[in-house]
């Protein structure tokens, strides 16, 4: 139970003082009395009441002085002034000095006093509650920020691991050059890519986009990498040559992902480049936009399409083989690139992309620049670019 609020009444007219004390006492307040300004201030300093009722016309140290002192030493304590002179000037002066209310004497109805006191104390209570609430919010906010910071630290560590699984920024085997760009929409990536040497004649590479993005999609990229590593391993130990057949690769990944029931699927474009045969064998599992092939003169989309990987158990994938020109640029991108382009319609975005892959000397940095992939805002979806080139 709350302790009753304590009220100091500073009033030199005995009758008035006694009747205020009696009435407020009955109303539930604990009353302290003083009959002049000096005594009043002494008692105030000692007792620290919750509210002061002060007459303006006090002998020696008058109400204005009391008010001024209290406002200075304890600005949060409400002071209600009482005055016999119905002087508006006095009232305004009192308020300017810090009084929160003004009661005119003679007091015909004590209810006026109790009401004024109740109101003033209620206001103090509300202000205090407000402050406490604000402090509580600040503490909660601080804790939340700390939690977020820990989560971000955690995710940054996870991102570091995931990014170790990506290939080197630039690689070169069998006369083919590879480079890539990846910009994620969240800390972890739902896009993935890799390029690797299969044997002294062949090189494999792929780009993949897991549905959704963030942590859950990142998990699937790790599964993908380990599946591909497995196939490479099987080849190196002469147990299976599936890695050389893109349709089989996609089939293998499809079965695995469907079987695991992740509620995730991915689009994937996997290619094997054969330096000796001068061919490119590939299978496109729903990757969009399609890869662009520039042969030194013209660029075109490689449009062969299959279903995405990991979505339908019965999906079947087909490989295609193309003869490779002596020099070429192959540009693969994930659909996050399309989101960033300024054109409104898909067809226009695709044309724009096609136009930009127009030089055998193009570098990944140039392409990133000309497509505006490093704009300041975080992208909506992960952005991936992979360039495979055979130079002059």
């Amino acid at each position, binding site marked *: 139970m709350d302790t009753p609020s304590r009220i100091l009444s500073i009033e030199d007219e005995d009758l008035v003082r006694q009747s205020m004390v009696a009435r407020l006492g009955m109303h539930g307040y604990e009353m302290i009395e003083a009959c002049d300004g000096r005594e009043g201030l002494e008692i105030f300093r000692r007792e620290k009441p919750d509210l002061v009722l002060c007459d303006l016309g006090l002998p020696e140290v008058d109400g204005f002085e009391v008010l001024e002192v209290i406002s200075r030493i304890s600005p949060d304590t409400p002071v209600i002034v009482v005055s016999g002179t119905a002087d508006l000037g006095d009232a305004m002066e009192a308020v300017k000095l810090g009084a929160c209310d003004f009661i005119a004497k003679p007091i015909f109805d004590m209810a006026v006093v109790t009401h004024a006191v109740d109101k003033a104390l209620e206001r103090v209570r509300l202000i205090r509650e407000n402050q406490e609430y604000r402090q509580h919010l600040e503490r909660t906010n601080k804790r939340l920020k700390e939690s977020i910071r820990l989560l971000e630290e955690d995710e940054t560590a996870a991102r570091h691991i995931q990014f170790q699984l990506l290939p080197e920024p630039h690689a070169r085997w069998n006369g083919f050059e590879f480079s890539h760009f990846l910009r994620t929409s969240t800390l972890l990536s739902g896009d993935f890519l890799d390029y690797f040497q299969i044997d002294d004649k062949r090189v494999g590479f792929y780009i993949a*986009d897991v*549905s*959704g993005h963030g942590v859950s999609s990142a998990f699937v990229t790790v599964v993908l990498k380990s599946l591909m590593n497995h196939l490479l391993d099987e080849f190196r130990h002469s147990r299976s040559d599936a890695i050389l057949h893109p349709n089989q690769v996609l089939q293998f990944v499809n079965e695995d992902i469907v079987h695991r029931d992740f*509620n*995730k*699927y991915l*689009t994937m474009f996997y290619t094997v480049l054969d330096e000796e045969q001068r061919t490119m064998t590939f299978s496109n599992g*729903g*990757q*969009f*936009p*399609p890869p662009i092939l520039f042969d030194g003169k013209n660029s075109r989309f490689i449009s062969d*399409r*299959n*279903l*995405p990987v990991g*979505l*339908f158990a019965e999906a079947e994938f087909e490989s295609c083989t193309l003869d490779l020109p002596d020099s070429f640029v192959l540009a693969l991108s994930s*659909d996050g690139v399309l989101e960033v382009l300024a054109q409104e*319609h*898909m*067809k226009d975005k*695709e044309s724009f992309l096609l136009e930009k892959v127009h030089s055998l000397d193009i570098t990944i940095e140039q392409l990133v620049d000309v497509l505006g992939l490093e704009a300041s805002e975080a992208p909506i*979806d992960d952005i991936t670019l992979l360039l495979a080139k055979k130079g002059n």
Partner: protein
Amino acid sequence: MEAGNVCYARQDDLVIVKLTGHIRYATGDSFHLSTSVNAFLDKLFQKKDFKNILIDLTEAESIDSTNLGLLAKITQFTRQHCGDQAIIVSTNEDINETLDGVGFGQVFHILHEACPVDGGMSAIPDTHEGAADLNATMLQAHRILCDLNTKNREAFKSVVHFLELEADGDS
């Protein structure tokens, strides 16, 4: 960006799922559209009291990968339990590119016309055996959709509404 919405309607043996606006995993104020649609589909699939599902994308502006997955779920179900691929009606070029990009033509009947002209549709896709029967079913489904879109828009209810009804029914 206009937030996406998913509504449904039923007529005869056909369930129509209508997607409008930009269909993303979460819409503006992080209301997870896809979670609701997923829950809606699960409840619907339990009932199994329909012959096919038609997905109306004519008013959709874009659809993300998570929701493409939900569409796939629909056709997987109808292939297994209704004996036929689900139907998609899509007239937006960008959406058509997206569907084409993921080879959905292989697992859905995709129609590119808003409403059939009297006497039939001008482009009836080439399908396998039973082509004649297939076409009649699709024609009918297509007509139902047009009927609802033009005359009876109030027939479409939000899937969230459906879930609320179901929840009341369960309690």
